[in-house]
């Protein structure tokens, strides 16, 4: 069902992913305007474009005894990770590379965010950024295991690590329907990966913006774009994992993929405006004591179902 697109699709991927990122930023801007009782006009919707332009004319900035190389590497890595991970995410019937180990590739690349965000926190040599860098590592300890097991669960159900195989495995019933715990796991993981919404402690207001507190100008732009790209990459990957990929009536496959991705993105952006920040120590405890056992139980159930079905 999913096939490898020609080589030039490497150039299309950043455009499509940026489109999703921009859509998320525009929805966020619209919700911000509404919360401040302004009318949602074209100017408000276009605000992310203006904000990006602003960062291009703002002077860059460094801090005393900062490790500039690692700092720039950190924000650049966020962008690169989001793009590279999405190589295996199909748009309708095509993906840039439907690797045999697609889901492993995706999970492994996004685990690189640990390094990227930690560097962003450590390199500027500033206390708020440092504290926030630690927070991301703590957050990662909480979300990474449930997220990884969730991805494994889906792969077990499909009997394939290939994303195309996982989409094919949902021909009759979407995994999102019969694996509710996995969906919750994945959404939490998506929020945590992009340090977004209730899991944005690494960039929260209490540390004046956390790992991004010292970034100015184009460096800030790279960091913010990277964060939206990660959010978009996470939303886009939910479609082949849980929502049957491009399957759907009337519209072409790619149309359904776009629609479903926008839907997931909308849920994630909405969460930012509706859900409070979760305190890291409580999240940590809940994640290990509740979420992880439930996730393992679901893996067990899925394994049994697969064994019975294949007899």
């Amino acid at each position, binding site marked *: 069902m999913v096939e490898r697109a020609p080589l030039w699709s490497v150039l299309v991927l950043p455009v499509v992913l940026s489109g999703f990122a921009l859509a998320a930023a525009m929805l966020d801007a619209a*919700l911000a305007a509404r919360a401040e009782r302004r009318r949602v006009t074209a100017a408000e919707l276009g605000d992310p474009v203006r904000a990006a*332009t602003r960062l291009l004319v703002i002077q860059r900035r460094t801090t*005393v*005894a900062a490790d500039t190389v690692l700092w720039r590497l950190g924000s650049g890595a966020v962008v690169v990770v989001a793009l590279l991970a999405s190589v295996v995410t199909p748009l309708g019937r095509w993906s840039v590379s439907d690797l045999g180990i697609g889901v492993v590739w995706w999970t492994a690349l996004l685990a690189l965010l640990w390094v990227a965000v930690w560097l962003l926190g450590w390199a500027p040599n500033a206390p708020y950024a440092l504290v926030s860098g630690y927070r991301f590592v703590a957050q990662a300890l909480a979300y990474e295991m449930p997220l990884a097991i969730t991805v494994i669960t889906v792969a077990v159900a499909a009997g394939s690590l290939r994303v195309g195989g996982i989409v094919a495995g949902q021909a009759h019933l979407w995994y999102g329907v019969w694996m509710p715990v996995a969906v919750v796991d994945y959404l939490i993981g998506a929020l945590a990966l992009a340090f977004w919404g209730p899991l944005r402690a690494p960039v929260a*207001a209490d540390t004046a913006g956390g790992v991004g*507190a010292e970034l100015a100008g184009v460096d800030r732009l790279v960091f913010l774009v990277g964060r939206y790209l990660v959010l978009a990459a996470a939303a886009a990957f939910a479609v082949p994992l849980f929502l049957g990929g491009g399957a759907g009536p009337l519209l072409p496959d790619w149309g359904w993929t776009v629609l479903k991705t926008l839907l997931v993105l909308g849920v994630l952006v909405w969460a*930012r405006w509706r859900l409070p920040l979760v305190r890291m120590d409580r999240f940590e405890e809940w994640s290990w004591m509740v979420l992880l056992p439930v996730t393992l139980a679901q893996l067990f159930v899925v394994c049994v179902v697969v064994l019975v079905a294949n007899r």
Partner: protein
Amino acid sequence: VDLTGGWRRFALARPHLLLVQAPGGTGTRLKVERVARRWGWPIVDTPADADLLVATGGDGVPFDEVVDQVWAAIPAPRRLLRFPPGIPVEGVEEGLASAREAMLERPEGNHHPTPEPPVRGRHANNTAGRSDGGDHDIDGHGMHGGHDMHGGGIESPGGLAMADRAADRDGLQLDVLHIPLGPALADWPAGLRLRLVMQGDVAQQVELDPLPAAELRSSAFWDWPWLASLAGETVSLGAAERHRAAAHLDSLGRLLVLAGLAGDARRCRWLRDDLLCGARVEPVQRAFAAVAARLRRSRLLRWSLDGLGVLDVDTARRLGVTGPALRAAGARDDLRRGDPAYWDFQPVIGGAGDVTARLLQWVVELEVSLTVGATSASGNLQPVDGRHEGPRGVLGDGQAPSAGLLETLPGLLSGLELAAARLVVASLDPDLEELAALRPQAVAHG
């Protein structure tokens, strides 16, 4: 040239504001926030993301130093605005608009901090910094501990003090950092400065060190109806309760930002401004009912805030805490019970005394104030034994309820993680303006 000009004009159409407030600047800060919201100019929380630095209140030397430090950390193009107290909204609008124009013409800014004498110790704010001479060389430095006496004379990277070692609560030898919190910090009580001894992200020791108030000319914005009534003026009950509601909305807005509820925080802020602008109470009441319902319903919010910064009744009384913070701990103290103008007023009490309890206490008292403000427009405030129940507690006899709130901080914050500490401070929201106006000697030692 024109193309570049148009590009820059588009880019800076909505400059980002950073507000730095000293005691005495509340009225002006509220006007700036109102204009910024209407125009869609974002108010940011770090100098790195700011274009216009707006300093309100305070014209003393200590505050000037704070402004200098923040200014040095703002990248060009930038502009400093200092609004005098009592400036009308039109003045704020004009000032902001012309600052944007000026920024396009002269990006390097209009402020030249006085060069600091090399020998003097100086404490820098976390995300703020100072320039190393040239205006082009911008550095927002952080990690120097703030204690210049610190570091034992060892030459350290960038002239910053190195971290110390000390045993933590588990008996491990961990790095210790001395970090000042405030006064230039978003969603933070104006003029408050805390000195933290941090290990990782845990505040092991907390010391109060507010900006010296003797040099700050101040009037207590949130207390004026009650102070005016104590001074013998006639203040209507409705006006006083509307003002109380606005004060609580301001506090609640800050707490909600830190709790991560950005949407409801912004709603609280425009409701606050509606009340202060004399809008009718009923629409505010209706809009707030939705916010209150969401706050009460949110189990996630309780889960995050429960058990934080527990202040029991005995400790609260011992430290001189009155008002909502005391009632949230379960005491029935409310001077409004004795005021005949309030009919048979029954105070609402919480019980747990934690951040959740104080948040919900504000919510419930807001609803009461809005109801009183909407219904009993007649009737005037009458002092009870020469005292009044202000938004933060008992006013009169030279009592400043915020003094008690401040005293609780070192005890409540020690051992807390940074995010938790910020939540606890916001849930008490001491008003240093009140201190400066009522008991200048109380903070003059700082």
